[in-house]
């Protein structure tokens, strides 16, 4: 099977594609990994406010200098604070998440099922150290959940599946999936193709998807 990273979008292009679908003025939480790259791709004319669950609303980019080791994001990387930022404690931070105040969250995934189930915190292997962080709170509390991920694992296994075999982060929570190969909506009928990456066709994506992929509807791919 072809190594997927050679075909379709790069990690950065995937992040850029996600950013196109975020409405102006949104309050956004970005997961660790490719989701973090979204912050670098705010479309012209829009402003997003980034929330990081460790207590900062108005997260800015990485510092140009050494930064402050106590000004970090949820991935424990040093960041900055924009004008209009605020600091708050952890319980207040999760008021924003659990209370439905964050508009949109972009997460990575180990698996997404056709009913929107997400598995992104554990492979369930015996002996592995389980670590959940804020993922379960985010999917339970944030209205719109985007997943951005390589379409398949490094071994070519599909990440979009009929049902998750890994432990769930949350049931039926994913709205849209952005991969190197396609943009795919989670609909009541299952996975529906919304957009193909350049040079990729429907069959190519279907072959690498572990569940039935419905063809693009006549609607445009824009969800916003």
């Amino acid at each position: 099977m072809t190594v997927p990273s050679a075909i379709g979008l790069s990690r950065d292009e995937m992040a850029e594609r996600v950013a196109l679908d975020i409405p102006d003025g949104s309050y956004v939480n970005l997961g660790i990994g490719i989701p973090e790259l979204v912050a670098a791709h705010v479309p012209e004319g829009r402003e997003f406010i980034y929330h990081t669950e460790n207590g900062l609303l108005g997260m800015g980019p990485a510092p140009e200098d050494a930064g402050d080791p106590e000004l970090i994001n949820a991935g424990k990387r040093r960041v900055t604070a924009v004008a209009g930022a605020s600091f708050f404690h952890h319980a207040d931070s999760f008021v924003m998440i659990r209370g439905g105040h964050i508009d949109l969250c972009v997460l990575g995934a180990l698996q997404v099922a056709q009913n929107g189930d997400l598995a992104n915190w554990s492979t369930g292997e015996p002996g592995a150290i389980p670590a959940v962080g804020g993922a379960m709170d985010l999917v339970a509390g944030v209205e719109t959940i985007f997943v951005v991920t390589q379409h398949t694992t490094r071994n070519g296994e599909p990440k979009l599946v009929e049902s998750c075999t890994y432990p769930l982060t949350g049931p039926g929570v994913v709205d849209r999936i952005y991969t190197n190969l396609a943009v795919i909506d989670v609909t009541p009928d299952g996975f529906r193709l919304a957009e193909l990456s350049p040079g990729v066709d429907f069959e190519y994506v279907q072959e690498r998807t572990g569940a039935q992929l419905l063809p693009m509807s006549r609607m445009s791919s824009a969800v916003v």
Partner: protein
Amino acid sequence: MIDKRVSSVEEAVADIFDGATVMVGGFGEAGSPIELLHALIDQGATDLTVVNNNTGSGEVGLAALIRAGRVSKMICSYPRTLNSTVFPELYQSGRTALDLVPQGTLAERIRAGGAGIPAFYTATSVGTPLEVGKERREIGGRDYVLEYALTADFALIKAKVADYHGNLIFNKTARNYSPVMATAADATIVQASEVVPPGGIDPECVVTPGIFVDRIVIVAEPALESTLVAQGASYP
């Protein structure tokens, strides 16, 4: 005059007893009270249950306490971090237990502990393996699980500035769990970079009111975990 200052980190942690539950502020290195943790290692208390978002990194601070065999159980949300090797080894060898709690549920359970709320409902973890053993209830058409308050015997907190009454302010994202932990512990022990007389902190900007703080010790230039780890430091 109300004055909660003590003279040293040794004095501050002297009464932490074997088997105690200890909340430790910090998220990664931000807000980690390294000097109090090292004093606790020196003090010798063991069989501790520790509540922290993570499990420390390298062989300093919280990781050093775990490495010294003093922690029989961790209650945390994310025990895997960059440079975190101590806890995984002890966990895999069965010498340290783990109670894994979603981050927002952990923060809210601690807040509930301080607020006299014995239990609350949340949608977090419904339909996942972390729901196992929890009571589920439908409220207003949605499923929730019942979560119980979390309290502690001691909280170890790092602040930026404290006044003699125990009013605290923090540095940026070093705030994280500390304000809720301060409310949930029988004895809240604070290391602050600066200590000022009452009135030295704007009453509109106090983050943790002094009522939640029991002891304050000045640690003027606290060590940073990342610096110590980069130096290959190991405590003791």
